[in-house]
C-alpha cells in the first residue's frame, strides 16, 4: 500500500511540475517564442478540461449504475465539434473581433453592451459552478481517503473536511498565481493552458493504463470482458430515448456555455483554424477516454465486494490487485482532472465577477468616473484574486453542506443544466437579429429561477434547503407548483423534468420578450455585427465624432492596460494613421478600436461606459442610425465595400499630400536652415567683433579688459561648438557616421551620462530616481553615441524642468528584442503644439540665455538613434516632460541605410 505521506508528497511534486511548466510557457510567450504554445494540438488538449473528475471517476460509476447512458456526456460535445463551422467558428470569430473576455461578456456585448445581462449570466455561472467545484473537491478528498484507509472498502479519512479545505486553498493559490498575472483576458494565459494540456495527457494516460490493466491484467482480454458484460446487469440496461436525447442536448449545450469551456475554446483561442483540428482530435480524445469505462465498471462490479463505491473503481481496482504504482498514476489522473477544471473555472468566473460586478460598481461609486486617473488595473487584478478565493470558498461550503454524499454524475448534470440556460440567449444572439436585451434578460432570469427551483434546491435533498413538505405537496400546498412535478407533469425523471421546463420557459420568455420589445441602436449594431460576423468587419459604428482628447484617453488607457501596453497601442494606431508619436487622431475608428481593446481587459459594458465619458455624443450618430435602418444586406455589403475603398483612397491621398508637403517643406527648410545658421553664427560674431574693437581702446581699465577678453573667449567656444554640432549633424543625417560598436552594461552608460550632465545648472538641487538593478541589461551599440543621447536628455531635464523640486525618473527595461529607456521629469512638460517641433533643428523653446545651446541637441539625438537603429520620441501624458529612447537589443544598425 502507498503511505499517505508519500501520496501527499507526490501531489506536491506534481503541482510543482505544473507550476514549472506554466512558468516556462509564460516566459516563452513573453519573449515571443510561443510557437508550439499556439499549436492546434495544445488547443485540443486544453479543451479536455471538459473531462473533469466527474468524467474520470464518475463515468465508471455512471456506467455501473445506468449502463451506456454515460455516453451521452461524450456524444453532445462530439456533435458540436464535428459541426464546428456551424456554431463554434462563429463564436471564435466574434470572440476575437469583439475581444470577448467571458461568456457573460459575450451576452452583454451582443445585447447592446448591457451590464444587467452581464450580471445575470455571472450569477448563473457562479451558482451553477459552485456544486461543480464542490464535486472536484469531493473527488480529490475521496481519492485521498481511499489511500488513507488502505483498504478498498472504507472511505473514512480521519479528517475529510480538513483535507478538502487544504485542497481548496492550494487550488486557490495556484489559480491566483497563474491566472491573474495578466489583466487583459485576450492576452491569454499561456502558462495555464500549457499546464492544462499536460494534465490532459496525464489523465488520458492514467485512464488508459488502468483500462489496459483491467482488461488484460484482471480479466482475460476482450472476450472475457465481453462475456462479463453479457453476464452483468449493464448489458440489460434499458435505453430510455427521452433521457438520451435530453442528456445529449444538455451536454452539447454545456460545451459552449460552461464558463471554463468558453474560456479555453473562445478566449484562449489564438487561431480559428485550430477548430478544424480540434473537430476530429477532441472527439478522438473523448473516445479514448470512454474506451475502457464499461470494462472497468463491469470488472469492478464482479471483482470488488458488494457495496464498493463504483465512482472509485478506477482507484480501488488496481489497489485491490496490489498495483500501488498504477493506483498512484490513476490518482494523479483524477487529481489532474479536478485541478485543471477548478483552475480554469475559477479564472473564468473571477473575470466575470470583476468585469461585470466590481468594475461597474467602482465606476459608478467614484466621483470622477473614468476621468479621474487611477490604478484601475490594480483594482481589477485584486478583485479577480479575491473572486478566485471566494469562488473556491463557495465550492468548499457547498461541499460541506451537501455532505459530499451525492453521486458524482448527478452533481455534474445539475451544473450542466444550469449553464444550459444561457444557450437560448446565445444562439438567439448569434443567429437572430430580432433578439433583444429585454428578451434575453427575461429568458435568462426565467430559466435560472426554474432551474433553481426544480433542480438546484432539491439537490440538497429532502429537508435540505427545501422542506420535505414543499417537495411532496408544493409550496402552500399548491400541487401544480411542486418542484419536481411542475404544472402537474408527473412521472418524469426529475432531471428531465427540470431540463424540459427550464429550457422551454426560458426560450418562450426570450422569444416573447424579444418580439414585443424594440432593440436600442447600440443593440442593433451589435446584433448586426454578431449575426453577420463573417460578412463584414465590425466597423466603427459606435462613435459619432471624436471630441475626445487623445492625451486624456491615453491617461485612462494607461490605468487599465498598464503604461507600456497602452503606449504601444496608441503608437501603433498613430502609425496606422501615418502619424509619428503616441497621439493618434481621435477618429471614430480609433475610439472604436480603443474600446474593443479595453473590452479585452474589463469587458464590453464597462469599456463602453468608460470611453463614453470622454467621447462626446457617446451615443450614436445619425449616420449610424441610417446604416442600421437600411438593414438590407446588399446595401450594407455594398456600402462596406465602398467604405473600404474610400478609406483606402483617403489613405493614399493623405500619403500623397504628406509626400508633397514634405517636398515643399524641404526646399523651404533649406532656406530656413541657411538663414538660421547665419543667425546662429552672426550672434557670437557680433559680440566678438564689438568687444575686440572695444579692447583696442588703450584707456580701458584692466578689469574690464579682462572681462571683455573672457566674453570673446566664451563666444569663440560657442562658435566652435555650433560648428561641431552642425558637422556632427550633417554626418549623422547622411548616415556616414562610423559607429564604434561595443558591448556594455546599460547601467554603466546611464551612470556615466548622469555624471557628465551634473555640471548643467549645478547650483540647483536635482533628484534623479533610478531602478539600478533593473538597468543591468547588456547593450551592443555605439556606446559613446548612446551616452551622448542620455547626457542630452538628462541635461535638458536639468535645464528646463520647472518644478520647484526638480526630479527626473529614469526607467530602463528590456521588452522583447528592444531596450527601452524612459526619462520622465516632474515639470510642466512640453505643450502639445511644440511636441512635434522639438526634434527639429534650432527648435529651441525658451530663451538662449538659459539654454546656452544652439538648439541642435534633440535633432542630434534623433539622428544618433536613427543611426543606432533605434528611436527617440516624446511620450505624452506622463505628467512632466518625458522622452523614450528605444534601441534594438541586438544591433540591426544601419537598417535604414538602404532606404
Amino acid at each position: 500500500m502507498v503511505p499517505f505521506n508519500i501520496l501527499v508528497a507526490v501531489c506536491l511534486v506534481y503541482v510543482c511540475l505544473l507550476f514549472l511548466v506554466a512558468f516556462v510557457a509564460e516566459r516563452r510567450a513573453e519573449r515571443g517564442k510561443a510557437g508550439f504554445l499556439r499549436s492546434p494540438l495544445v488547443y485540443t488538449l486544453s479543451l479536455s478540461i471538459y473531462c473533469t473528475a466527474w468524467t474520470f471517476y464518475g463515468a465508471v460509476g455512471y456506467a455501473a449504475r445506468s449502463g451506456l447512458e454515460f455516453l451521452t456526456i461524450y456524444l453532445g460535445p462530439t456533435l458540436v465539434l464535428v459541426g464546428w463551422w456551424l456554431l463554434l467558428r462563429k463564436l471564435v470569430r466574434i470572440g476575437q473581433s469583439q475581444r470577448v473576455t467571458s461568456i457573460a461578456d459575450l451576452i452583454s456585448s451582443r445585447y447592446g453592451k448591457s451590464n444587467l445581462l452581464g450580471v445575470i449570466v455571472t450569477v448563473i455561472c457562479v451558482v451553477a459552478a459552485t456544486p461543480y467545484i464542490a464535486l472536484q473537491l469531493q473527488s480529490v478528498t475521496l481519492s485521498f481517503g481511499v489511500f488513507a484507509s488502505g483498504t478498498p472498502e472504507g472511505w473514512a479519512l480521519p479528517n475529510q473536511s480538513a483535507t478538502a479545505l487544504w485542497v481548496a486553498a492550494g487550488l486557490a493559490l495556484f489559480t491566483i498565481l497563474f491566472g491573474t498575472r495578466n489583466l487583459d483576458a485576450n492576452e491569454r494565459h499561456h502558462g495555464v493552458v500549457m499546464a492544462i494540456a499536460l494534465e490532459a495527457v496525464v489523465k488520458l494516460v492514467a485512464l488508459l493504463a488502468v483500462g489496459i490493466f483491467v482488461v488484460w491484467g484482471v480479466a482475460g482480454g476482450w472476450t472475457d470482458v465481453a462475456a462479463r458484460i453479457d453476464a452483468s446487469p449493464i448489458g440489460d440496461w434499458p435505453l430510455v430515448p427521452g433521457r438520451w436525447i435530453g442528456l445529449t442536448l444538455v451536454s452539447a449545450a454545456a460545451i459552449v456555455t460552461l464558463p471554463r469551456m468558453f474560456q479555453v475554446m473562445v478566449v484562449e483561442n489564438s487561431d480559428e483554424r485550430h477548430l478544424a483540428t480540434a473537430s476530429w482530435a477532441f472527439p478522438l480524445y473523448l473516445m479514448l477516454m470512454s474506451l475502457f469505462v464499461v470494462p472497468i465498471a463491469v470488472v469492478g462490479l464482479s471483482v470488488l465486494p458488494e457495496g464498493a463505491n463504483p465512482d472509485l473503481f478506477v482507484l480501488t481496482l488496481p489497489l485491490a490487485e496490489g498495483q500501488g504504482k498504477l493506483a498512484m498514476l490513476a490518482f494523479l489522473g483524477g487529481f489532474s482532472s479536478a485541478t485543471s477544471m477548478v483552475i480554469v473555472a475559477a479564472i473564468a468566473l473571477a473575470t466575470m465577477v470583476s468585469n461585470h460586478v466590481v468594475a461597474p460598481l467602482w465606476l459608478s461609486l467614484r466621483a470622477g468616473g473614468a476621468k479621474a486617473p487611477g490604478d484601475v488595473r490594480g483594482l481589477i487584478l485584486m478583485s479577480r484574486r479575491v473572486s478566485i478565493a471566494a469562488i473556491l470558498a463557495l465550492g468548499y461550503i457547498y461541499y460541506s453542506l451537501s455532505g459530499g454524499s451525492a453521486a458524482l454524475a448527478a452533481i455534474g448534470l445539475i451544473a450542466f443544466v444550469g449553464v444550459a440556460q444561457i444557450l437560448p440567449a446565445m444562439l438567439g444572439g448569434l443567429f437572430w437579429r430580432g433578439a433583444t436585451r429585454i428578451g434575453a434578460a427575461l429568458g435568462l432570469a426565467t430559466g435560472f429561477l426554474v432551474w433553481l427551483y426544480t433542480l438546484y434546491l432539491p439537490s440538497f435533498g429532502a429537508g435540505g434547503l427545501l422542506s420535505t413538505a414543499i417537495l411532496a405537496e408544493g409550496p402552500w400546498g399548491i400541487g401544480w407548483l411542486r418542484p419536481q412535478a411542475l404544472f402537474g407533469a408527473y412521472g418524469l425523471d426529475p432531471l428531465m423534468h427540470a431540463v424540459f421546463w427550464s429550457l422551454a420557459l426560458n426560450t418562450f420568455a426570450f422569444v416573447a420578450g424579444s418580439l414585443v420589445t424594440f432593440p436600442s441602436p447600440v443593440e442593433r449594431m451589435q446584433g448586426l455585427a454578431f449575426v453577420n460576423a463573417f460578412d463584414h468587419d465590425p466597423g466603427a459604428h459606435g462613435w459619432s465624432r471624436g471630441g475626445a482628447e487623445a492625451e486624456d484617453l491615453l491617461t485612462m488607457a494607461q490605468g487599465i492596460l498598464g503604461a507600456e501596453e497602452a503606449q504601444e497601442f496608441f503608437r501603433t494606431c498613430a502609425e496606422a494613421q501615418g502619424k509619428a508619436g503616441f497621439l493618434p487622431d481621435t477618429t471614430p475608428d480609433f475610439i472604436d478600436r480603443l474600446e474593443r481593446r479595453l473590452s479585452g481587459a474589463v469587458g464590453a459594458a464597462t469599456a463602453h461606459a468608460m470611453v463614453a465619458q470622454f467621447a462626446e455624443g457617446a451615443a450614436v450618430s445619425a449616420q449610424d442610425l441610417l446604416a442600421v435602418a437600411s438593414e438590407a444586406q446588399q446595401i450594407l455589403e455594398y456600402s462596406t465595400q465602398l467604405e473600404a475603398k474610400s478609406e483606402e483612397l483617403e489613405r493614399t491621398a493623405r500619403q500623397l499630400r504628406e509626400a508633397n508637403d514634405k517636398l515643399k517643406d524641404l526646399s523651404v527648410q533649406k532656406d530656413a536652415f541657411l538663414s538660421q545658421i547665419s543667425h546662429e553664427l552672426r550672434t557670437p560674431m557680433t559680440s566678438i567683433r564689438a568687444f575686440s574693437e572695444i579692447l583696442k581702446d588703450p584707456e580701458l581699465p584692466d578689469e574690464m579688459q579682462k572681462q571683455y577678453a573672457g566674453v570673446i573667449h566664451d563666444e569663440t567656444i560657442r562658435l566652435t561648438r555650433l560648428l561641431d554640432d552642425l558637422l556632427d549633424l550633417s554626418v549623422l543625417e547622411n548616415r556616414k557616421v562610423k559607429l564604434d560598436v561595443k558591448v556594455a552594461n546599460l547601467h554603466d552608460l546611464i551612470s556615466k551620462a548622469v555624471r557628465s550632465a551634473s555640471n548643467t545648472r549645478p547650483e540647483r538641487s536635482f533628484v534623479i530616481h533610478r531602478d539600478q538593478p533593473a538597468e543591468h541589461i547588456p547593450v551592443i551599440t555605439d556606446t559613446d553615441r548612446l551616452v551622448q543621447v542620455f547626457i542630452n536628455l538628462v541635461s535638458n531635464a536639468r535645464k528646463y524642468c520647472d518644478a520647484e523640486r526638480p526630479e527626473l525618473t529614469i526607467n530602463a527595461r528590456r521588452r522583447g528584442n528592444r531596450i527601452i529607456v524612459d526619462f520622465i521629469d516632474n515639470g510642466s512638460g512640453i505643450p502639445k503644439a511644440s511636441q512635434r517641433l522639438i526634434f527639429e533643428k534650432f527648435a529651441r523653446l525658451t530663451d538662449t540665455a538659459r539654454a546656452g545651446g544652439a538648439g541642435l541637441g534633440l535633432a542630434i539625438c534623433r539622428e544618433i538613434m536613427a543611426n543606432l537603429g533605434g528611436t527617440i520620441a516624446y511620450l505624452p501624458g506622463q505628467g512632466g516632460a518625458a522622452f523614450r529612447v528605444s534601441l534594438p537589443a541586438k544591433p540591426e544598425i544601419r537598417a535604414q541605410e538602404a532606404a
Partner: protein
Amino acid sequence: MRPERRLQRFAMMRDLVLTAAGNFGDSRIGMARRGEVRRHMGRRVLLIEDEPHIAEAIRFLLARDGWSVASHGEGTGAMEAIRRETPDVLVLDMILPGRSGYEILGDLRADPALAGLPVLVLSARGQAEDRAAATEAGASRFMAKPFVNSEIVATLRQMAGG
C-alpha cells in the same frame, strides 16, 4: 634676437597700430571724445536685445558716448519697458523670446504716442528681404549684425537728432 628685444619691437608695433587707428579709422569717436560729448549727455536709449553679451557691448559703447542706457532682455514686456523708459531712440533685435521684433514694431506704430519713436532694427539676418521686411514693419533704420562700433554710435546720434 634675444627675447627682450623681441618684446620691445612688438610694443613699438602695437603703439603704431593703435595710434593710426585712433587718428584715421575711428576718427569720429576721436571727435566725439574731444568735443561733442556734452551734446548727447542725457539722451536716452532703450535696448531690446536677448543676447546679454551684445547688449553689454552696445551699452558700453553708448555709455562712453554719454547716453543713458536702459535694456530689456526679451520680447515679452517690451512694450511696457518702452512706455516706462520713454527713450529717445529704440534699438530693437528682431528674433526675441516671447514676442518677435516685428510684433513689437507693429504695436509701436499703432500707438499714436509711440508712432514717431525712431527705431534702429538690429538683426542677425542681414539679407535684402530681411531689411525690406523690417522697413515695411516700420523700422527707421536697419543694421545687420555684426556691426561696426563707430557706425552704430553715429547712426543713433543721427537718429536722436543730432
